């Protein structure tokens, strides 16, 4: 570990699907919490989740009182003819005292840069900015201060990017894992008519059906069989890129195994690679989960900063029996 990196304390950015989860994350040691409005402007537009303008204002006051920041994700792609909703969301976030907004759409970023020049802009992972040239374009054109990197890059590639760009980077270290370049996938749209980019949902529960067929439990999405398990075995949620299919002579997980991301052990090399912030996925998860994951990563970061090793089993149990992967951070994933 180099000395300069040891002096830079990374920011731990944690999810909050509700005001209660936000308080939990702050109390568990989040340096920053990210959340979204209760509408189609954010990419976790699930029933029962997210914040009203009033709740956001109250939550930001709570977070600030406890020394944490709040980042507001407005990271779907505004609907043609309906951009006002997204413009208002940016204005509401600034009005509520947000420390930054996380945006993905070029037009919305351009709007925010002109209309809200004092508001700090982060580029969402949904913008899939995957190299130094395009990141410089975003930073120089619109004053983007931080880019959340797509989960298609290896650690050396992240280091190379940080050596060449004028802004900060944030990377995902835990939780669900998109196998596609984020914001550039319309598989869910193809199967259900509902997409992450337009509707803020992927493989939505409204289009899921579990059905018994003989000795099998079949998990379907939009009428397509995504997986089949023997009755009695826990059936996975039919996220379409994590299903089992056939292709040529191959049968199995064509796109990705049902794994989740755990890069806790990569915190040291990622700090050395110049990463500013570590992000935990999961705004849709329970408060108990949020508490456990945030506390574990708080300890992981603090241990590393104090020169202690990061315990190898620290985050394993949090994956709730799921297999974990370091994803694209290891080049062999490709």
């Amino acid at each position: 570990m180099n000395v300069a990196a040891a002096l830079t304390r990374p920011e731990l950015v944690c999810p909050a699907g509700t005001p209660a989860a936000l308080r939990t994350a702050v109390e568990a040691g989040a340096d920053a919490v990210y959340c979204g409005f209760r509408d189609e402007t954010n990419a976790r537009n699930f029933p029962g989740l997210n914040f009203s303008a009033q709740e956001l204002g109250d939550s930001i006051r709570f977070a600030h009182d406890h020394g944490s920041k709040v980042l507001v994700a407005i990271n779907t792609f505004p609907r043609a003819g309906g951009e006002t909703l997204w413009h208002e969301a940016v204005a509401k976030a600034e009005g509520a005292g947000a420390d930054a907004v996380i945006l993905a759409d070029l037009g919305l970023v351009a709007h925010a840069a002109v209309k809200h020049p004092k508001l700090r802009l982060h580029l969402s992972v949904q913008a899939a900015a995957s190299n130094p040239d395009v990141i410089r374009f975003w930073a120089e054109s619109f004053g983007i201060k931080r880019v959340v990197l797509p989960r298609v890059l290896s650690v050396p590639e992240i280091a190379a990017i940080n050596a060449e760009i004028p802004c900060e980077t944030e990377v995902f270290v835990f939780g669900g894992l998109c196998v596609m370049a984020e914001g550039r996938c319309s598989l869910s749209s193809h199967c259900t008519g509902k997409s992450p980019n337009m509707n803020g949902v992927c493989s939505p529960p409204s289009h899921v059906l579990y059905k018994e067929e003989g000795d099998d439990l079949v998990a379907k999405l939009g009428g397509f069989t995504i997986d089949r398990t023997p009755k009695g075995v826990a059936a996975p949620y039919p996220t379409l890129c994590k299903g089992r299919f056939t292709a040529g002579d191959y049968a199995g997980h064509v796109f990705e195994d049902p794994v989740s991301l755990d890069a806790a052990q990569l915190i040291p090399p990622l700090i050395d690679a110049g990463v500013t912030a570590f992000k935990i996925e999961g705004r849709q998860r329970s408060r108990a989960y949020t508490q456990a994951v945030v506390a574990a990563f708080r300890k992981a970061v603090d241990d590393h900063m104090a020169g202690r090793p990061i315990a190898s089993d620290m985050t394993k149990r949090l994956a709730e029996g799921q297999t974990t992967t370091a994803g694209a951070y290891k080049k062999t994933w490709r």
Partner: protein
Amino acid sequence: MSDVTANPTLVMGPVLYNWPVDTWADFLARVADEVDVDRVHVGEVVCSKREPFYADRLPEVIERLQRGGKSVVVDTLALVTVKRERQIVADLVGLEGVEIEINDLTPLATLEPGRRFAVSPLVNVYNEGTLGWLASRGAWSVCLPPELPLASVQALAREGARLGVETQVFAFGRLPLAISGRCYHARIHGLAKDSCRYVCAEDPDGLEVDTLDGEAFLSINGVQTMSQDCATVIDEVDALLAAGVTSFRLSPQTGDMGVVAAAFRDRLAGRIDGVEAAARLTAAGLKVPLGPSMMSRAWVPANAPGGA
């Protein structure tokens, strides 16, 4: 600037698959001489590992197409991560006298202000704000993402007309649905992307991915995921023209793309009806099944009556 009152423009998109370089050059030579399209796209979009095969032959192919009276656009890579990929993009952008189409925003980092460019369906243009910003930066043609509903196409075509930007739809071909850092062709052959042995070349239309029940589902093309149907807007031509769409993109598949282009040309000109056009597409010798466009499909939630 395109003339939005003129007849609709018919465009041959870039070959998205790993075709042997001679097959690819022969295809484009035939397009140059015999296929009735106004514009032809060339250049590797999907995988930088394929790019060197085509790079040397590109000048001759472009020249041949131009001699055939086609305007030519060179496409950039869709996913740019490593240095070599950045160099490929920078080299294309640096070429004098070549029209480029961007497949992500990377080229805008080096494209001189005022230089015009086209925008591919892999760039997220969902609204007037994005369209307007790109137009002010030099975009003269935008092919809209296939997932957009007709209402969005209408709104964007209206704005495109106001800005003098050609509004194009992805009119024919397996739909480009996703791009990844991971190569699925390599993965299902037990290989990694870096040692892929170019197994994607075995599947000139991509490889079908079916459900465990044997139902047609998706297809893979290296790092790209596509629909399994060859989606066509042939049934929506009237609605799209009424919406103000000025350009239609045909994405090359194995089969007679000349027949496909002629069917679209005649349908767009009102010389044949949808039934006749569909019959001609069916007779084009395609190796992949025809299917509906995304905008024409109706999805039913699983918990609704008659749902999945």
